[in-house]
């Protein structure tokens, strides 16, 4: 296997992805990601020199809305799925940073 995923890498990806893995899951994740990277490294065979990266598949551009207020106060709806709500706001554990 060409791609060896280190503990540090899995730890780091966990921080980026905001996912916490048990030790067992970590081992599995290292293996899975290594295998997957080996597989997608297949793209390296392909010469893509000079090819423009394509993010949008069709040349559609300039889709705009006019600067006109269309939404009213929909607070109740917006908050209706909140795990915790207080005074019309979403509640999260206290944070300082």
């Amino acid at each position, binding site marked *: 296997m060409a791609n060896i995923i280190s503990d540090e890498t899995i730890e780091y990806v966990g921080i980026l992805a905001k996912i916490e893995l048990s030790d067992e899951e970590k081992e599995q994740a290292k293996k899975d990601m290594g*295998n997957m990277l080996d597989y997608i490294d297949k793209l390296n065979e392909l010469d893509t020199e000079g090819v423009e990266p394509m993010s949008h598949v069709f040349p559609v551009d300039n889709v705009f809305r006019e600067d006109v207020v269309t939404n009213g106060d929909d607070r109740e709806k917006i908050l209706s799925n909140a795990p915790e709500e207080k005074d019309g706001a979403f509640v999260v554990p206290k944070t300082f940073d």
Partner: protein
Amino acid sequence: MSLMKMTALELGRKIKSKEVSAAEAAKAAIAQINAVEKDINSYVTVLDEDVILKRAEQVQKAIDDGGISGPLAGVPVAIKDNMCTEGILTTCSSKILGNFKPTYSSEAVINLERAGAVILGKTNMDEFAMGSTTETSFYGPTKNPWNTGHVPGGSSGGSCAAVAANECFYALGSDTGGSIRQPSSFCGVTGIKPTYGTVSRYGLIAYGSSLDQIGPVAKDVSDCAAILETIASYDKKDSTSVKRDNYDFTGALIDDVKGMKIGIPKDYFGAGLDADVKNAVLKAVDVLKEKGAAVEEFDLSLVEYAIPAYYIIASAEASSNLARFEGVKYGYRTDDYESLHNMMKKTRSEGFGAEVKRRIMLGSFVLSSGYYDAYYIKALRTKALIKRAFEKAFESYDMIIAPAAPTTAPKLGDSLNDPIKMYLGDIYTISVNLAGLPGISVPCGLDRNGLPIGIQFIGNCFEEKKIIQAAYAYEQTREYAECGLC
């Protein structure tokens, strides 16, 4: 003929002619759901009977008043559980959205409701549409109605199984890498993945935004054309929505393929393709040839690069799209936490299943500092090349024909241990998404074990009508095969 064996359009006509009422149709669907759902598990949520019947009566009244007159008026439908439905649980088959009731409906659902659809419930899927078997659902796997020891395919496995098992008259699915076409083929039903931008994505809970499209799943091509005609619209709420010149997809239901030029990509018929599948598809091609189509083999090229490119792009987009689920605004929140970041982390770790985590982590990695060019940009360049290869093919052919999947439905539990093997099952469908093209999967026979096989018609962008016509013409040569569940 039992009510539930009708196609959506047949039922629509009976409702219009007052032979059947919308409520009778809904009751028949509910009865079938009650009868087979414990074996199939097509649905995450079935609406309460009185809610369904109330809606059916409301639609019936509108039909009687002349307010609604479309071909799908009063016909019961099932919606994949990644499309928002106002006031109805929408889970994406995930624990993390286990209690989420959207306050708005997706545009495609609104379009259906305007046409008089009666929603029965929300269908099971691979969690967040990540998977090819519907086994990654938090709410248990859906079983293949043809053989409950097998998977229905995925990720729209619930929608396809529900149609096959007559638990609805038609369904909506979504297709990011084959998620409509592959389970359609596994379940012996017909499904269309439209050209990117044809059906609004507003209200579709995103997996890979640049690839996702909503499409119809039904018993035949005519139903699919009528459904697509109903759900397709130019939507100002979706910036990637495309204004099409015409939405008259049913106008293409013509039994004629004379002079059509069909390309058969040799690279799709090589190693890895099951012999029964190969034979069935090639036999179908022969039928088209007999009906006057000009068939030719060609090299599409780049086939083996589509899956790696897809997994980079889809996982990267998914890692970002699914960042919003963290227990602050909606959905699941872990019971026990120490701080804000700990709360978000635990919520996500407990709320997402293994396959979703796997893709989020892969996506986070390929976008991370130092890897973006090597993986993400490389994948976007590959996508450009794949698009170019299709463009070149469509200079010579009206359409391309391929299998929808290399095999028929695998056994339950066989795919999960080896993710890459599962990913390889999407080899014939994925590049269609990368290039934004339309594709339709139509049943074309059974394998040695009696499991359905699907043939895929791939069209150039905005040329749904060509593939609908060819698929319809092919379909006229055979009978709809029942799974035997009703």
